[in-house]
């Protein structure tokens, strides 16, 4: 018998969720701190899915009653959707509560500025030692965006250097061939771009690349890319913006 309409479909997609890293098993302190954090940006956390990261707790060998923490989180208004870094017992408890384990795979590259392998963690330093909430990139359409810090660079980016921003990246000098600039948000190069520029690296398809002179080796937005070969040389020396439309990179002159 011919199947004219499909019953269901699996699609690969990127999904954004805050990760809650716990440093203590003191439920009272956790609840208190969570309330404080939520009050800073209530809309951000409204109906928010949450992945619970237990690595720090397990490093300190602190026991956590899993059922209790999930109840607490639900009470506050979160939707726990998974755990990671749990030990065997915690994983068992999670399964019992229908929570997937180790669902989150690390995305993105470590931030490398220049040559020094200074690994700036993508996580924010916790304000208090008990609870840390990691802000992942958020799709602007669904939730009001919480802007991550922009990175501003005034010196030329030399060949071989890499710059990463978890927000927007603004560069005032030229970017040499052989250099790589990456941002989770938009990229602005107010000069000649000769290297590789990757915007929206965590999947933000609304990210754009703006530059005064597009001579890039490679441009990419959320994974869709074009190499220098595909770039029309007529765009050289003209201010342009690059954005994504249906998985195609559109290059348009900025009037």
């Amino acid at each position: 018998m011919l199947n004219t309409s499909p019953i269901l479909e699996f699609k690969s997609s990127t999904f954004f969720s805050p990760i809650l890293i716990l440093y203590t098993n003191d439920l009272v302190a956790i609840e208190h701190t969570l309330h404080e954090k939520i009050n800073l940006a209530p809309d951000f956390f409204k109906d928010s899915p949450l992945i619970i990261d237990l690595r720090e707790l397990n490093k300190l060998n602190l026991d956590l009653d899993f059922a209790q923490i999930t109840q607490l989180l639900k009470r506050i208004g979160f939707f726990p959707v998974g755990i990671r870094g749990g030990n065997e017992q915690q994983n068992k408890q999670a399964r019992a509560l229908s929570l997937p384990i180790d669902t989150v795979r690390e995305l993105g590259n470590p931030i490398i500025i220049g040559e020094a392998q200074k690994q700036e963690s993508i996580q924010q330093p916790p304000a208090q030692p008990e609870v840390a909430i990691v802000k992942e990139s958020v799709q602007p359409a669904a939730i009001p965006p919480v802007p991550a810090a922009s990175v501003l660079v005034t010196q030329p980016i030399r060949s071989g250097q890499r710059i990463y921003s978890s927000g927007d990246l603004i560069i005032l000098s030229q970017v040499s061939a052989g250099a790589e600039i990456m941002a989770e948000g938009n990229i602005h190069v107010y000069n000649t771009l000769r290297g590789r520029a990757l915007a929206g690296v965590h999947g933000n398809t609304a990210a754009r690349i703006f530059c005064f002179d597009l001579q890039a080796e490679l441009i990419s937005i959320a994974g869709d890319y074009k190499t220098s070969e595909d770039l029309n040389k007529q765009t050289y020396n003209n201010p342009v913006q690059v954005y994504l439309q249906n998985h195609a990179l559109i290059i348009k002159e900025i009037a």
Partner: protein
Amino acid sequence: MARIIVVTSGKGGVGKTTTSAAIAMGLAKKGHKTAVIDFDVGLRNLDLILGCERRVVYDFINVINGEASLNQALIRDKNCNLLYILPASQTRDKDALTHEGVGKVLDELSKDFQYIVCDSPAGIEKGANLALYFADDAFVVTNPEISSVRDSDRMLGILSSKSRRAERNEEPIKEYLLLTRYDADRVRLGEMLSLEDVQEILSLELLGIIPESKSVLSASNAGIPVILDEKSEAGQAYADVVARYLGETLPHRFIDGKQGFLRRLFGGRK
């Protein structure tokens, strides 16, 4: 305190050793006590270019390892008694170079010398990194040719992040461009990158343009730094470079190449 100059490039064969020898001799001739050090362990050639290869007893590695004193290893140049050469080892490998060792030698030299020129090996590995680590000034030697420009660009990135000044957040190394093997005729024909093309990518302070010159080979064969050949254009260009480095303002003489008599007469420049 001595001023430490690194002559570096990234790319090999662009004229670092020729430049190191010429600059060091130029500074010494102007009355400054100068030491020039070969950092190319295992592939030493500074001693050949300066004509002292038959007087090498001890080398840089010997001094670092404490097997000889600095005074025993330094070779005084026969053409100028203010110039001293510290040759590299030919038999050891570059792992014998250490940060502390190099630092100590430079500190000791700084007591007596006014300029220390570090002749870097090609590449971006240990030898090159150590040559630039302690530098105050960098002469980035570049040929007007795309791979040399790309490698110099890479080296600039390394200079701004791997030097001691960068690590300590001090004032950064002062970077200068030295455009070598420049052929004005080929530039005019569009066959060779022009100064503007190179500067579009590197954007450095131009210290000098050294024209392509047969005298460079003759000088290295004779073991005399080309700056002492006053008839050669390359030699004159290096002399200009030293003067400019020391603060004089001089026009760049060799950027337009040879001007025929008739051309000069009728004023045509291009």
